[in-house]
């Protein structure tokens, strides 16, 4: 597995609002974090919508890597990290979680209504450009939609480069990232401004310490109001997946022979 290489000492995980600049540049970094149901939770339908009222909400798993990469970037280059979420009041928790890990600022774009990808990406990209961010980190896909549209879509709206499914990052002049391609991995140079969609890589995500948790408790969420465009894609209903008919179960290793026959004669796949 590739090792992450960093151009600065990243063992120092203190909360330092300005970071320690290597050059004169102070990078303004944004990280998008989303609140989603814990992946262990049972999803239930009530009427024709998913009912999340009794589900534990957590930071979407890949966003943890996005936060970690954003913090590593700040430590390597100097700058600030702002965590941004789009949601209602209840989404403040995911911002506080990011704050406890070490981001500098936390911003919520206040919106509870459904937005299709186009409306959603517009809302995000407007804030990114108005507030002058130079790098955006996000998850490669969120655990609820699984769509993976936000990173590349926001980049396109901003006219920026984007790299997705990134597993490792080296913070050089621009960024040198590792991402899978057909047959292996590509090591790609990209300069800022850029949107980086993060996969799990070889980095370990840091856990909040007591000081971080205390700071997060006191931290103020900056709430911005947004006025999304109308969506052209609308949700008609949400439902449970069709039940798969019960399969066939056999006892003992010898039955593997029968299964191979079935794969050919019943399933027609080999």
């Amino acid at each position, binding site marked *: *597995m*590739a090792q992450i290489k960093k151009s600065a000492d990243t063992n120092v995980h203190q909360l330092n609002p300005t970071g320690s600049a290597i050059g004169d540049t102070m990078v303004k970094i944004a990280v998008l974090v989303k609140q989603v149901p814990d992946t262990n939770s049972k999803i239930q339908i009530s009427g024709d919508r998913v009912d999340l009222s009794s589900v534990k909400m957590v930071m979407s798993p890949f966003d943890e890597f996005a936060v970690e990469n954003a913090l590593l970037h700040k430590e390597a280059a100097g700058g600030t990290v702002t965590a941004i979420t789009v949601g209602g009041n209840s989404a403040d928790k995911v911002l506080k979680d990011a704050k406890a890990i070490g981001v500098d600022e936390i911003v919520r774009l206040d919106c509870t209504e459904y937005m299709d990808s186009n409306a959603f990406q517009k809302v995000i990209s407007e804030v990114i450009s108005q507030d002058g961010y130079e790098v955006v980190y996000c998850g490669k896909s969120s655990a609820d939609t699984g769509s993976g549209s936000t990173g590349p879509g926001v980049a396109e709206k901003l006219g920026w480069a984007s790299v997705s499914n990134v597993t490792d990052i080296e913070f050089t002049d621009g960024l040198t990232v590792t991402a*899978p391609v057909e047959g292996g991995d590509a090591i790609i140079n990209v300069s800022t401004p850029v949107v980086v969609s993060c996969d799990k890589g070889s980095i370990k995500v840091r856990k909040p310490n007591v000081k971080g948790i205390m700071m997060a408790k006191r931290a103020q969420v900056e709430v911005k109001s947004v006025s999304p465009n109308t969506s052209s*894609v609308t949700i008609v209903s949400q439902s449970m997946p069709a039940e798969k008919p019960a399969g066939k179960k056999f006892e003992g290793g010898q039955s593997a022979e029968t299964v191979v026959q079935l794969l050919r004669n019943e399933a027609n796949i080999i």
Partner: protein
Amino acid sequence: MTETVIIAEMHKGKVSPTTNELVGAANLLGSNCTLIVPCTDSSVADEASNISGVTKVIAAKSSLFTNYDAAAWAQALDSVAPQGIVVTSASAQSKDLAARIAARRDISVVQDVISIDGNTLSTPIYSGKAIENVSINGDVVVSIRPNVFAGADNDGSCEVQVIDASGDLSTAVKELVERASTRLDVSEANIIISGGRGMGSPDNFSHLEVIADTLGAAVGASRAAVDTWAEIPHSMQVGQTGKTVNPNLYIAVGISGAIQHLAGMRSSKYIVAINKDADAPIFQYADYGIVSTWEEALPVLGNALSNMLS
């Protein structure tokens, strides 16, 4: 009727068979289907001209299609593609491209579509624990899950137009690190055999590799295997924090079937499970379950397969 525009799915520089499924899906969304083939050598587009249901093939020719660059590909393909509903595969790269093209055209994207009924599209949400049905109004970009839609036949014929496409590169590939093994990656394979903690040691994955080589399959792993053994890289991980796969056949060996593993593979067309615990949750999702240790079952499986395929 609605115009549809398909971006051909490419594999090793050629039009991949998945493209026939994209045509099948596009024909449910509209008519007059233009197939765009991103290529460096336009002759590869000729093969696509016999896919039935395609009205016209456009070979979008450019040296920038050598390596994936999201911004440049979206720009180049947008410039040659007519307006309409754009259809791509839901492979990791094509989903990324789909999102970029949609944003560029100021329209929305619906990813991972698994069924189409008029203007209503269905996609899995919460990693397949539920389904969302959305209605589309006007042009959108849709990415189609592989191995779900019936593929169009290859008995058509249509005109191939070659257009030089161009775009501004925003990334530079410094190095390509080829995988040590010649075996496919789980994200590319139509058959996957995965091992879990029940394999006991990373060395035992060699038993899975033998079968993978017989089948032309990829070898995958559960997170427990990846986290426990340094020899099993994360690139092999299937699941919530690994890869989402939709192969024709998924063989789970020594994998219990935790919800986060299912998240990555439950939409496989056929699932075979080998597990010594008859109550392992994976059996609820398996089309064919074998209650046995892998030590006992894998040699039998391997022999039966090589007898059948030789």
